[in-house]
């Protein structure tokens, strides 16, 4: 199909950019873009990235090392007995001194299933049992006895 030359000229005039980009400007833009991204493509850019990777790795190592010191620190011996700070030892025989005989008397009393004094529930769990004996015994061997 042939388009009339007048129609072709009109369409060209209608859709052609009004302001064209001169090739010099286009080249200048492209040159600046290449200059800007050139270091990342070059060996220097790779060195920079490696350099930063090592810095990050070193920082991570320092943080991990700091944490590992805490992780490897030897903790004190574990005990499944009661924390003495949460309980108060009782002088069962009321001789003014808390020693192993207090724990022993309490243990004997529990075994004999005789009437128990409510104040012998040393740990306050509502029961008078072996755990109360342990609390009294641990109070007896406690190194800092100024609280007793």
């Amino acid at each position, binding site marked *: 199909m042939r388009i009339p030359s007048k129609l072709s000229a009109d369409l060209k005039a209608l859709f052609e950019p009004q302001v064209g980009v001169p090739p010099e400007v286009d080249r200048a833009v492209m040159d600046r873009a290449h200059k800007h991204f050139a270091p990342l493509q070059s060996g220097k850019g790779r060195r920079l990235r*490696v350099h930063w990777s090592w810095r990050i790795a070193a920082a991570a190592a320092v943080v991990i090392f700091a944490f590992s010191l805490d992780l490897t620190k030897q903790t004190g011996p574990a005990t499944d007995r009661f924390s003495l700070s949460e309980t108060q030892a009782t002088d069962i025989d009321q001789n003014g001194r808390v020693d192993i*005989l207090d724990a022993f008397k309490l243990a004997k009393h529990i075994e004999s299933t005789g009437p128990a004094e409510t104040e012998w529930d040393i740990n306050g769990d509502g029961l008078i049992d072996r755990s109360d004996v342990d609390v009294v015994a641990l109070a007896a061997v406690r190194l800092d006895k100024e609280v007793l």
Partner: protein
Amino acid sequence: MNKITSIILAGICFIIPVLAQQSEQDYSTAQPGVRFALLHIYLDSGNRDLAAYQFELKAAAGQIKIVGVEGGQHKAFKEAPYYDPAALANDRIIIAAFSTGGDLPKGRTRIATIHLQIAGDAEPQYELKLTVAGNAEAKEIPAEITFEKGE
């Protein structure tokens, strides 16, 4: 590159804690003049049954650390006795035990063994004091406490 960095980081994560722990162990065992010893504690209650005891041990001289406590020879005191865990790595300890069983020792019996770490060449001196000994009725009885050094 990222893969290599990840491998290095992972290696650091695993190696550093291991090295730190290793160096700590090396330090504790590589100190000059450190040795381990046992101290056997004996109690003589004469012809009375021994049902309970409590004593205190401390170093009068020398550098010691208490590192462990064992029970005694008689089955009434075979279990590990009571002691304050804070005494471990310390040079002072209070130890106590009792038995509500019927079979109780008489005479001289080993009631406990203490494991010690001794630093330096000086022979440590110990101060041992019996706080109380009791019979099956939980009454205080006279008794004599002694110790023997072991290896």
